[in-house]
């Protein structure tokens, strides 16, 4: 299915947020996730299903002031 990953269109086979992270190369990375604007805690990724057109945000620590 097609989702929007960090603003860009992306095809994924995964059905859950957790599997999508693995598929997209985030396995083992320190990241936080939000689906359609709502925070998805790490513990809820396996049970959070993806649907066509979903917006998935994957963020990591960055420089800030």
């Amino acid at each position, binding site marked *: 299915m097609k989702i929007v990953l960090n603003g860009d269109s992306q095809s994924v086979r995964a059905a859950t947020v957790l599997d999508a992270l693995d598929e997209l190369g*985030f396995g083992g990375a320190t990241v*936080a996730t939000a689906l359609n604007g709502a925070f998805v805690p790490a513990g809820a990724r396996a049970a959070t299903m993806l649907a066509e057109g979903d917006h998935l945000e994957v963020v990591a620590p960055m420089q800030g002031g």
Partner: protein
Amino acid sequence: MALFYGQELSSPLMLGTALYPSPAIMVEAFRASGAGVATVSLRRESGAGRSGQAFWSIVREMGIPVLPNTAGCHTVKEAVTTARMARELFGTRWIKLEVIGHTDTLQPDVFGLVEAAGILCDEGFEVFPYTTEDLIVGERLLDAGCKVLMPWGAPIGSGLGLNNLQGLRTMRAQFPDVPLVIDAGIGLPSHAAQAMEIGFDAVLLNTAVAKAGDPVAMARAFGLAVAAGRAAHIADPMEPSDMASPSTPLIGKAFLE
């Protein structure tokens, strides 16, 4: 020294991690400054690049408490969601809460700020709100559960110093027991020293160090400035006067007419 949500800082200097010429210079600047807190942010990560992972590894190695921010958020929803992600990402309840109201000045939207602070405090966050020197907004933030206030000195990144010195003095007097931090606008070590001299508990800055010609030397200067300003505040400065007052005794002066 003031406690920030129960935590004592090793230095009243809170230093940002952005805009340095290189990660190595950033690390060296932190070491030279003796900063007690490192501010950080969170941004989109790429599965291929993973740049955030390398940055996080460097920051963790510095061994300084981190204060994640919600920089760039213009709505309550954005700021709250960002804070929730930051708590999980950085493993801290601390959040530097920014709800930006104006693009050019980066002035906080204080109405959204109070609303977001209330939500986050109820969820157990320890909120460091980026606010103005407005006393009523300060009261509302404390009512919402904040135990620290962070008024701006001047617009973020402007380096103008303490634009409203009297307003900041009044804020200090109004909230004598609340840890107060000058956040934003500091351009020179003298600005940081001034903030500490008038009784602020810490200063938060980034650009003034990172964009200096020699960030490491400037970081060292800021470390010295906050220490000097704090020592001066504790030493109870003299009251200014409009008129001159001789410091050398007149009694005993030789008569030479």
